[in-house]
């Protein structure tokens, strides 16, 4: 991002904005990183549930230019499950892995050969099927990693198969018009697969992502924008019959009085619940501040049954001082990172405050909201953490407004937010904060807030101050997965930390 222009950055933000879905913690050590290269790591999900983690590493193969890749799987307890070894060139990486109880879907990208595909593997590691995808610049691992770190997964496990989401472009340039490619890949290679793509004749830039699914229906959000720099952005929900690929309905959130940026959905019996942030009638997403949270209930035919809203000004105003621009005193502007709708219609939202000055973005405290099914604010949790200022590396950033700068900061991973993980009846939100410590070396700490029975419980884990890099991953109920890299020892440690809740 160092040499990219504001144009490119905004484009990145644009896509990020489309692809931001609901962001919806034994020990394993990899000590032989002198001989192998850790290419990619990530979580394996089945629905919302974390089923394990994958580690892809490679070393030189026997033949010249050939690499030997090892995809190692560990379960939710970090216990080794097994591995799959395969050959490839130097430019192979795994961008997403999903598990649906029967098969493992691995999305691979070969940047040199410009290929992208989904490989289905059975319990013996044997290939069941291979689906070739349209390769674009957005398949590049760096971009994919940025997306998954924001909670967007290009693969989702659904009953009987997997959903795959790709961003396509007409030309190789990152500036060319984008479209979406939604595929259903069934477990059975002989089964019915289907694909939905953006209309070739469309005028707008488009992108899509997974929202929710059950045995019969899959919901995806489709984002549209007139041009790369257009301020007009729309989000619709596309409902498709999972078995046949037939479009059932499109919910035009874009045609509502208040523009709603839908980021989460849940299918619960006859109800479809959609949630996101709403904007004023004349406001633009990304540029303007959102007014609050919205919850929309549809029936399975797409007919709207109920709309509920929570205004930030009216609700948060009871707990904090707020200025006329909607900023919260001491916290600043609010950036929504994660939204989760429970089957009963309760909503959990995780946001972080930030202020801007010129090209500088200061990341402040976090706020967590818990709303009952009537959208009444039940609990507000103010999580205090050390503030940190980052300078945006984009040219011309100083000219942009605070929300745009906030999204730019989000696109480079400047916020402390790590993830929001729903598990059965709890939701865990995690932040990775750099702490200034008195009388000792500064270091990273993991802050977690777990919502159980309507109340948040906090926890804090101090990380090893000798680690050079650290990241936090969602985990099973009551845990957080912490990964630390020690450059001197060339060692990667992954461990589960138990949370107080």
């Amino acid at each position, binding site marked *: 991002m160092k040499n990219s222009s504001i144009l490119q950055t905004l484009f990145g933000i644009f896509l990020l904005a489309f692809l931001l879905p609901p962001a919806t913690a*034994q*020990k394993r050590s990899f000590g032989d990183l002198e001989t192998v290269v850790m290419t990619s790591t990530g979580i*394996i999900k089945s629905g919302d549930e974390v*089923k*394990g983690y994958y580690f892809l590493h490679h070393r030189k193969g026997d033949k010249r230019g050939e690499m030997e890749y090892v995809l190692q*799987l560990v*379960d*939710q*307890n970090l*216990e*080794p*499950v*097994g*591995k*799959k*070894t395969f050959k490839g060139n130097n430019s192979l990486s795994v961008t997403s892995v999903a*598990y649906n*109880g029967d098969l*493992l879907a691995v999305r691979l990208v070969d940047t040199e050969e410009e290929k992208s595909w989904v490989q289905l*593997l059975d*319990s*013996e*590691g044997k290939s069941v099927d291979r689906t070739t995808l349209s390769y674009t610049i957005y398949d590049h691992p760096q971009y994919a990693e940025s997306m998954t770190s924001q909670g967007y997964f290009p693969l989702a496990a659904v009953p009987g198969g997997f959903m795959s989401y790709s961003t396509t472009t007409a030309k190789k340039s990152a500036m060319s018009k984008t479209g979406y490619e939604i595929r259903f890949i069934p477990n059975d290679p002989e089964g019915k697969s289907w694909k939905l793509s953006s209309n070739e004749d469309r005028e707008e830039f488009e992108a899509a992502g997974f929202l929710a699914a059950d045995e019969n229906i899959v919901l995806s959000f489709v984002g549209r924008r007139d041009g790369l720099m257009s301020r007009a952005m729309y989000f619709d929900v596309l409902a498709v019959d999972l078995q046949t690929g037939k479009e059932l309905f499109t919910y035009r959130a874009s045609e509502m009085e208040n523009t709603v940026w839908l980021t989460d959905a849940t299918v619960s019996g006859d109800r479809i619940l959609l949630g996101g942030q709403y904007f004023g009638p004349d406001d633009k997403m990304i540029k303007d501040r959102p007014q609050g949270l919205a919850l929309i209930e549809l029936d399975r035919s797409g007919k709207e049954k109920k709309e509920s809203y929570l205004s930030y000004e009216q609700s948060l105003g009871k707990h904090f001082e707020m200025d006329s621009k909607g900023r919260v005193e001491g916290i600043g502007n609010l950036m929504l990172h994660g939204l989760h709708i429970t089957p009963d219609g309760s909503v959990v939202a995780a946001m972080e405050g930030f202020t801007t000055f010129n090209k500088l973005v200061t990341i402040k405290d976090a706020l967590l909201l818990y709303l009952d099914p009537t959208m009444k604010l039940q609990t507000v949790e103010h999580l205090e953490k050390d503030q940190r200022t980052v300078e945006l590396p984009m040219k011309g950033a100083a000219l942009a407004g605070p929300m745009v700068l906030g999204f730019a900061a989000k696109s480079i991973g400047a916020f402390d937010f790590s993830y929001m993980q729903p598990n059965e009846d709890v939701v865990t939100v995690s932040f990775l904060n750099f702490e200034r410590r008195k009388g000792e070396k500064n270091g990273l700490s993991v802050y977690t807030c777990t919502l*159980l029975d309507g109340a948040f*419980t*906090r*926890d*804090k*884990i101090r990380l090893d101050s000798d680690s050079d890099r650290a990241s936090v991953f969602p985990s*099973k*109920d*009551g845990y957080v997965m912490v990964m630390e890299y020690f450059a001197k020892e060339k060692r990667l440690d992954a*461990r*589960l*930390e*138990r*949370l*107080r*809740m």
Partner: protein
Amino acid sequence: MPRINLRRLRPFLFGHLLLWVVAAHGQVEFVPSSCVPADSLLLIRNLDSRYQLALAEAPVASREIYAEALMDRHEGLLDLLRGEQFLFEPGVQVYVEAIFQEIIRANQLEPDPLILIGRSPTANALSLGNGIFIINVGLLELLSDRQELAFVFAHELAHDQLRHLYAKLDARAALSDQLGQREFRRQMKKAIRKGRTEEVAGQLQEIVYGQRRHSRAHEVEADSLGLLFLRSTGAPAAAAGQTLAKLKTDPFYATDSIDLHRALHVADYPFKARWVKEEDLLFGGEFGEQESESFWDHDSLRTHPALDDRILRVDSLLDTGPSDGDGQPQPWVEWAARECAESYLAEGATAHALYTALKLLQRRPDDTYLHALVGRSLLATCQAIEDHDFDRCVPPPRYFDDPVARQVVRMLRQMRSSEMLHLCRAYLADKQSRYPGSRAIQTAFAKAQEGIISAKD
């Protein structure tokens, strides 16, 4: 070491046993034994004189290696003493020493044994040379027959008589000479330089295997001599095979299954099936290729021969068939079981402590000390979660083979900390109302009511 006067201790010994009889009827609660000797100075002097004597006997050629090893032993023992890793229960001490003395007298041996009762729940005994022996409390729990203990002690005395510690030090000195030789080092460096790392690894592997072979040979010798020592006491030699067979079983596991739901269900806080629900694992826990074989051969790394081989070898030396022993029950089994549980808890192994308490409650459902131990284990686990020390206290889900032990681990891993504290309080409250006179339950309940100590609040 001054001998303990058995006559003087007899009233105490019988007094303690009497307490146990009463305890068995639920009237007197178990109180953990002291970890501090009655006369620390006397014990330290004894250890010090044995250390000085051993140093003086060290051969000139290997003095450095001897000095280092003896210093390690001496300081290690003092550390264990300071760390309260020994139990000083006069009754047990008298009992164990009496068995040792019987073997010593019957075989006209000369050692003046210094016997320490280790707090470790591992069923083991150690001969540290110079007449120093450690008998783990876990061994006293496992071996319920006096003759079985006698064989283990005879085996350890054999190690001492055969000077196995010194044989080990001599072997170490020889190895040190070999590794220090210029030619050997030159060859190794050359092989590494030429990329023949597997060859170097193979040679070093062979050295380690050689040491372990040496160690296994010592065990076989100690079994044979130990058997002779045991025979001289007039004890049935069949106790040897019987003892080895018992050591083969893991004493940690219960013979009866434990119904966790029944054991922990309290009317005020019913047991939740979710706590023990089997986890649905990725591909059932097995996918694709499994981990490649280890560089080390497990059998070649053993310091002891496989117990099956030892049993066969000992049986071949016996002229009698298997027997059930002479029927002299070892009176310290129950005490040892409780001390093991205390030891687990003291070391933070809360899952082990909870499992042990539940296991013992199967035999003694009205033991108030054990009920208190259940509550204390749950509370200690909550504290471990708070301190982010949980993984040290509760082993990984697949650590145990025993299904019940696995279930206990699973429960502690799946129960939320708030639920654990709730269960702990409800369980202790329930037991307090049932056993109002129990001091152990009262104390545990009061601590549970105080809750966990949060460093973060």
